[in-house]
């Protein structure tokens, strides 16, 4: 009987077609689109004005570092001994409507335009060291330059004195001035930006890799292995990091490659600890057990399940490591252990400027500004990322 009854239910092909929800029919309308984790992070990040400013500075920096050097035909090592030590701001003596005279702090004479473009160098034809006078001829006129006391005086043949008529004219030929060898500071700073960014990014990648693997393995293995591995980290941490970087630089020798490797080798300690902490808190959760039950191997669980879930704090640490690496490179170069000449990093530029600080402060000012602004920008972004990735940390 019952058998017959079941047979009477006729299931047609049409019954197997899934029910489709019709548009506009009774649905629960979401107030807004649901956000992914990273969209939420971005939303919070955008609220932080300083971080946005930092990000903008970094983009500008990357742009300058990548494309800047392509736009000029000069290189960071091109020297022009005739144009040495010209500051970015010029005080000009008027010769006539189109031609102006500039006297540099090292008492070289330059013919310039009204707008501050340097036309040529004027060679003095007499240098009287006793009376402290130099003279030079320009278009048939003889000019005498007296430097026995400040302010310096320039007198024409007919005893007319020249006066500074235009103050602080922007140097159009070398916007940030030139160094002792006549190398353009702006171009050198652009190349320095390349070096800083390379060091910052590559060193962070190196310590990211080492840190993730070391911390991940240590936490995942647990027990004695974890204990030994972390003890080792503790010992390394108790050596001042900079000291250890310096020691390794002494062993490896200076150069861009060694700077990157050394910083990468030293700065992974913090990363390893953070990764370990994250993974310790994650590894006993259900999704890991589920993966294990499904037969996943240890390295798969580590790489596909644990580390992606710990990504937030890892990214924050990377963001904080970049300015630290840039700073360390500048420090090393400043001490004379960083990149080697004629390559110039900002630290090298600052170091070279130290000797002439009183007379040529601009040589120090611009590299110092570049370092400070870059480190500041990366720090702002790092702070913003930390606050937006883990809002609980915000105080």
């Amino acid at each position, binding site marked *: 009987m019952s058998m017959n009854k079941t047979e009477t239910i006729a299931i047609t092909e049409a019954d197997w077609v899934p029910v489709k929800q019709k548009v506009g029919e009774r649905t629960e309308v979401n107030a807004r689109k649901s956000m992914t984790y990273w969209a939420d992070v971005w939303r919070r990040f955008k609220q932080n004005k300083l971080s946005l400013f930092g990000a903008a500075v970094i983009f500008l920096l990357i742009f300058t570092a990548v494309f800047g050097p392509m736009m000029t035909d000069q290189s960071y090592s091109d020297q022009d001994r005739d144009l040495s030590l010209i500051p970015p701001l010029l005080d000009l003596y008027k010769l006539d409507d189109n031609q102006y005279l500039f006297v540099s702090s090292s008492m070289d004479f330059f013919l310039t335009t009204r707008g501050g473009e340097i036309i040529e160098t004027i060679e003095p034809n007499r240098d009287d060291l006793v009376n402290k006078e130099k003279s030079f001829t320009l278009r048939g006129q003889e000019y005498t330059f007296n430097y026995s006391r400040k302010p310096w005086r320039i007198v024409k043949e007919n005893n007319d004195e020249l006066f500074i008529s235009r103050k602080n004219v922007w140097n159009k030929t070398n916007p940030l001035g030139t160094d002792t060898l006549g190398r353009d500071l702006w171009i050198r700073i652009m190349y320095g930006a390349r070096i800083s960014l390379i060091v910052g990014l590559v060193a962070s990648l190196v310590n990211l890799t080492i840190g993730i693997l070391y911390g991940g393995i240590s936490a995942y293995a647990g027990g004695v292995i974890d204990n030994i591995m972390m003890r080792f980290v503790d010992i390394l941490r108790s050596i001042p990091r900079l000291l250890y970087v310096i020691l390794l630089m002494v062993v490896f020798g200076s150069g861009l490659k060694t700077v990157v490797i050394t910083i990468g080798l030293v700065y992974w300690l913090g990363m390893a600890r953070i990764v370990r902490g994250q993974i310790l808190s994650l590894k006993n959760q259900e999704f890991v057990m589920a993966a294990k039950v499904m037969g996943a191997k240890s390295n798969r669980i580590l790489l596909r399940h644990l580390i992606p879930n710990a990504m937030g704090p890892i990214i924050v640490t990377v963001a904080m490591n970049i300015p630290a690496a840039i700073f360390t490179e500048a420090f090393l170069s*400043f001490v*004379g252990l960083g990149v080697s000449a004629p390559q110039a990093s900002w630290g090298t530029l*600052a170091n070279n400027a*130290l000797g002439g600080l009183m007379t040529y402060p601009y040589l120090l000012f611009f590299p*110092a500004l570049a370092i*400070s602004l870059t480190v*500041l920008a990366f720090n702002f972004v790092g702070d913003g990322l930390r606050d937006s990735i883990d809002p609980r940390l915000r*105080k």
Partner: protein
Amino acid sequence: MLRYLLSRIISLLITLFIIITLTFFLMHAIPGGPYDFEEQDLNPEIIKILEQKYNLDDPVWRQYVDYLKGIVTFDLGPSFFYEGRSVTELINQGFPITSRLAILSILFVIIASVPMGIIAAVRRNRFADRLVMFISTLGRTIPSFVMATVFIYFLSYKLGWFPIYGADSFMHYILPALALSLATIGRLTRLNRAAMLDVINQDYIRTAYAKGLSPSKVMLKHALKNASIPMITVLGARVATLLTGSFVIERIFAMPGIGRYFIQSISNRDYPTIMGITIYYSIILLVSMLVVDIIYGWIDPRVRVQSKGSTR
């Protein structure tokens, strides 16, 4: 407490031993020696004599054991560069200057970051807070060597308020110490603010107010005391930063401290001096971290209870 102290000292010695070993073998991995200063190739016999003089003809393990023995008796070997002077002598000579510099900058750190942190916490999210946080960010991010040169240019050269070079009087120390301390001031102000914010919302602070104490008394006696715990820890760790920071600062201000010898020894490839100063700095750092831990247990009773309870 005594047992805790003992175990800490033992782990300190082990750490130190590992540092010494690492440094020794790192330095011996570099080819070269005291005879590398001459431009021209030296006569092999002279090299042999020089090697004998510095015991470099011994097998490496022998040199290592000798070096360890030397450290116990504070004998860090002869300098390769300064003829006839030992590394210990160099350190002794530079130590007063470097330590004065470090102490003065620690003082600056405490004087600046404690009040700034309190102000920022009390006036949270107002103008004063923003200003303090901005200053601390600047301090944290601008490299000390940049600060130092800015100070020299404006305060010493343009305004003439401070001497530019040297270490002869108290005035000579102010600018270097300030430049050295700014990064730490930035960090500690932040930390102090966070700690104060934590503490301010605790019940016992409300109780203190309820008893009718004045705000300044509550802040200084009740809040600051408890908020200072994380600060002390960090200050201990920052000693390292101050010491390594002094490398450049001493160079910029031409102060004959240990840091300047260190930088010089690097450019001179004076390996015993590099090694000696590294080890010396590591000892100072480890000891200062130990001292901080002891102070920590002393001011925070919670730590004492924990250390009694746990075996480690």
